[in-house]
């Protein structure tokens, strides 16, 4: 076989593989939206109350639970992850402590989410006696998302040019003042982008949720220490229990709605990221 022929075959094969990967994505999105979009965008469905046994139930409390959970998780996780990221980016020196922190983060990033669910269940739900609660899920998911939040925040902080720090410190500002007044504000757009992406992950998470937050509620949750039923967990519950006669329709609609939510979050994060980059480019041109 000539080298050129082999090259042509390889080009064909890799093009095919690339197209298969994108084909999988499109196939899933079209299938799920095709089956559920009409249900999902019906106000009676996404603004309706769920039914335990009867047909015609909606998913409003579940949508609220998902959003509520995302907000709570970020409230718990952000101060910690930003603080940790500042330390890792600005202060960390090579050593045993820093490498154990990195090892722990890698471990947290690889652990199955169901293990987080079991942990959250034993610690927050049982040991702290919170019961199944949005807050229990928020703490569990904060730990689950800590590695990804920390890494992207750390990268955003490291992108701040070293000259900013030097300029600030040469004016007599202390290390801490420099971080607070110069580094964090400059890194803020990056930190915001880094924060939006995990929202999709939080809303899509289900295994850790069904063990810590709950799978079915009828009313919109208000108290963070009350039970919730995030959409992803409810879809699983509706599908596996099949208690209502129209559960297939609910699952189809719920899955489509969840997919739309996640897509919106994804493109929002991308948009924020692009805006940030544009601003940075313009800043560079103006010599800022």
């Amino acid at each position, binding site marked *: 076989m000539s080298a050129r022929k082999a090259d042509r075959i390889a080009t064909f094969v890799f093009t095919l593989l*690339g197209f298969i990967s994108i084909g999988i994505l499109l196939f899933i999105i079209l299938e799920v939206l095709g089956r559920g979009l009409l249900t999902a965008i019906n106000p009676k469905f996404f603004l309706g109350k769920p039914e335990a046994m009867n047909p015609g139930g909606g998913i409003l409390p579940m949508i609220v639970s998902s959003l509520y959970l995302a907000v709570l998780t970020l409230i718990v996780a952000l101060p910690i992850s930003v603080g940790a990221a500042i330390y890792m980016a600005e202060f960390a020196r090579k050593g045993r402590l820093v490498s154990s922190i990195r090892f722990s983060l890698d471990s947290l990033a690889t652990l*199955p989410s169901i293990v987080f669910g079991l942990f959250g269940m034993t610690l927050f739900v049982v*040991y702290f006696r919170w019961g199944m609660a949005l807050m229990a899920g928020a703490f569990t998911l904060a730990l689950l998302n800590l590695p990804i939040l920390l890494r992207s925040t750390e990268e955003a902080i490291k992108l701040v040019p070293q000259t900013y720090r030097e300029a600030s410190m040469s004016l007599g500002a202390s290390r801490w003042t420099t971080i607070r007044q110069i580094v964090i504000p400059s890194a803020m757009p990056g930190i915001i982008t880094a924060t939006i992406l995990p929202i999709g992950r939080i809303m899509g998470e289900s295994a850790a949720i069904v063990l810590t937050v709950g799978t079915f509620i009828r009313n919109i949750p208000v108290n963070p220490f009350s039970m919730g039923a995030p959409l992803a967990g409810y879809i699983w519950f509706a599908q596996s229990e099949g208690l209502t006669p129209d559960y297939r329709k609910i699952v189809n609609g719920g899955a489509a709605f*969840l997919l739309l939510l996640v*897509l919106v979050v994804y493109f929002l994060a991308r948009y924020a990221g692009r805006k940030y980059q544009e601003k940075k480019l313009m800043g560079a041109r103006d010599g800022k």
Partner: protein
Amino acid sequence: MRESLARSLIKGDKEAYMKLLLLACASLSILGILLIFLFITRESIPAFVHIGFKNMFLSAHWSPITGHFGMVGFIVGTLFTTVIAIVISAPLGIGTALYIDQIAPEWLRTPVRRGVELLAGIPSIVIGWFGLITLVPIVARITNTSGYGILTASLVLVVMALPTITTLSAETLKSIPQELKEGSAAMGATRWQTMYRVMLPAAREGLMVATILGMGRAIGETMAVQMVIGGARQLTVNPFQPTSTLTTRILTEMGEATGDWRSALFAMALVLLLLSMILIISIRLVSRQRRVAA
């Protein structure tokens, strides 16, 4: 004079205090992983004491009502689905990464990369539902079985592992010095020769890490697998037979389990923890090998 000294001391104190606080935030990750280990181990101790190591890890007889808690079937289920999934998704993912890096026209590169990223963001419950309503009937028709089982679960896991493998592989390929790629082309190598002889060897460790992390996703996936694997409590290596994995068994039975049964489920979680640790340590070994070689 004295006052300013005192003030700088207080200021210095504040700096040290802030640094300590930030360090505490960073150290929370260590605390977190230790607590997870501690609680999962603590909850699984009764199982080791009452049921015994042998009855759990050398038996495939799982029947909580009669007090049998052999989990070999589920460990095999986890490993088997993962292996099939990786055998498919590693070539597919690395191939897609090569396509993005080398073959795709400029205007198509970013959309393909973003598409793969997006695939990573699709909730596992949605992929599971897709598997249930789309893949199960297809597999059922082709193989003339129920459609639930190891093969369908593996196909779902391909979707879960693919974005991880592709994204990390693409990053590795991108980090290969441009001179290396151009040098090879300048010597008269075709694109395929450059990819095969220069890029793949240069990226070997990175591609291995990508594949291992893809395995991590596959081992830990719960919802999507649970919806298509059939949920049978049996040891089987027939890809068309329903069975369970560690994660799906924990999910299905945690709600009703009490006593030793519940504890046995935590012992399964401990196995999952150990599997994750093995993956992480093998990643460290692979990366260290690279450093030594370089």
